[in-house]
């Protein structure tokens, strides 16, 4: 029982680290323009498909496929922002939210038309990466090298992001814009460019998550972005939306919680559990674990 729990804990950390990568995109965009970017889950799906296409059709090495997917989605995220969100920046939040939902529906159905409704399989891991090996940890817990790769890649990307946000000039401008959009604009921050950067970074992280999930589970499907996107959003809310460490922590927590539910034999309710967590968090502490209270002004 204990070893089973430990195995699920490690599975949960691996799954949770991909949720965290996607949650970062939600939280960064929400921090700056207060919009739930519904299309983010579809960018994750697009990243997985681009990675898959690069590996199978163009026969690129997996590392370049990974980078290529990140680059593709970076551009895609910026274009989506320019087309669907930028014209609505001064209109109501309801309008922007409906537009985001529209983009999400459009992209997932476009993928359905292009790639078909059936799940597409990734080539076996041995061919593109390495042979899967299992390592014994304490108390019978096991970890595979694929899980180690997933966790390490996510961790490296998140550390890079944290460094970028804290140290670089653009990162500083991002933080300023998220604190006060208008004041940042008055102080000479090019807010439009900062918003583009935010979408670019968030989308490339989602693409990275997409390729990792594609390799990890071996299948890619046109509607995979919907559920994962919602769960990543849950993770972002759980950690406190707008907070970057919160998104990482929330992702891990959600992944672990979901896998523990599977360990307890509730696997057919695992989606319901994720939403149950979301609704509970919103009711008890809407600001999340790391979030700050925003004072509403008239």
């Amino acid at each position, binding site marked *: 029982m204990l070893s089973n729990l430990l195995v699920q804990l490690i599975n949960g950390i691996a799954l949770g680290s991909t949720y965290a990568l996607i949650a970062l995109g939600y939280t960064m965009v929400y921090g700056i323009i207060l919009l739930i970017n519904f299309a983010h889950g579809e960018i994750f799906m697009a990243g997985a498909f681009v990675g898959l296409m690069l590996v199978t059709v163009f026969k690129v090495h997996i590392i370049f496929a990974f980078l290529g997917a990140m680059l593709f989605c970076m551009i895609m995220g910026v274009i989506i922002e320019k087309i*669907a969100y930028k014209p609505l920046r001064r209109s109501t939040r309801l309008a922007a939210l409906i537009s985001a939902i529209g983009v999400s529906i459009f992209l997932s159905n476009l993928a359905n038309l292009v790639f078909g409704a059936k799940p597409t399989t990734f080539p076996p891991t041995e061919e593109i990466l390495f042979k899967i090996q299992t390592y014994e940890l304490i108390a019978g817990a096991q970890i595979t090298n694929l899980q180690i790769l997933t966790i390490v890649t996510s961790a490296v990307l998140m550390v890079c992001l944290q460094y970028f946000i804290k140290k670089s000039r653009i990162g500083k401008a991002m933080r300023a814009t998220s604190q006060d959009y208008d004041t940042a604009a008055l102080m000479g921050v090019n807010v439009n460019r900062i918003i583009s950067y935010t979408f670019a970074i968030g989308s490339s992280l989602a693409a990275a998550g997409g390729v990792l999930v594609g390799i990890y589970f071996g299948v890619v499907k046109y509607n995979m972005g919907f559920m994962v996107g919602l769960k990543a959003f849950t993770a972002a809310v759980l950690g406190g939306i707008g907070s970057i460490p919160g998104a990482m922590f929330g992702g891990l927590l959600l992944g672990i919680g979901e896998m523990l539910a599977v360990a307890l034999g509730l696997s057919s309710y695992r989606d319901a559990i994720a939403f149950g967590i979301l609704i509970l968090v919103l009711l008890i502490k809407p600001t999340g674990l790391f979030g700050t209270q925003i004072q509403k002004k008239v």
Partner: protein
Amino acid sequence: MGLLDGLLPAYYESILITVGIYIILALGLNLITGVTGQLNLGHAAYMCIGAYTSAIMSMHYGMPFIVAILAGGLLAAAFGVVIGYPTLRLTGDYLAICTLGFGEILKSVLYNVPAVGGAMGLAGIPPKTTLTIVFIVMIIVIISMVRVESSRFGRALVAIREDEIAAECNGINATKYKLQMFSLGCFIAGIGGALWAHKIMVLQPRDFGFLKSIEILNMVVLGGLGSIPGTILGATVLTSIPEILRFSSEYRMLLYGALLVAMMIFRPHGLMGGVSFNSIAKRGMRWLKPGDKPDDKPGQKGMGG
């Protein structure tokens, strides 16, 4: 009863029934999202509750159709209160996510409950929905929506949409009004669901997913958020055109996604934004008697301005 049944070929009658049901559903969502500005992404979930409740009522308990419909509506309204009471305190975006989450939870619960058919669905519902019944219910819903819009309650809802804090400063108990509005909208969704169940005769949990909610939202957005004639137009257009042109469902959803974005950018108030039956009547009067002031008709005194 039955005046309208059998007048048209069965195919057109079926389309008209579908249009009528979608008008009912869309009017419920229009009250929540259009009039009050609370984005509800789980409208199909309340439709689902109404559908399953009424189906069980008429299959297992042999209830008359009217009782089954009302039971479906009431249970959907009860769920609306249960979900709305905690979530309506949240701001718009969180409400959207919570309603969406509720829809998904409901779906996965229905998948796992064998008593209502699980993933196989609930089959063998008697086909009791006729064009006459749908037409009568639709007229009742339209009239009550027009009356709600022009009442004190409706004006309070519009005030909440425009600025919740300012509305509360003017003595509107926003949470109370939003809760009443939400349960009314869910009641209408439940009634629509009950009619739907007795039309298609087989209920499956996956028919009531996120995409169904988006389909209904699209009707409201296309017609014009907050406009009753607009919502009716939107529901009619989006139900009958794909049916007549026989779009495949993938292209339809692709188009719906693009439509949502385009409407928000180019015409955020929809085709008939700001148009109510009252303004149509006034314009018609002016056209009939140029130079005359439009008559104040009884029953529409409550309209301010």
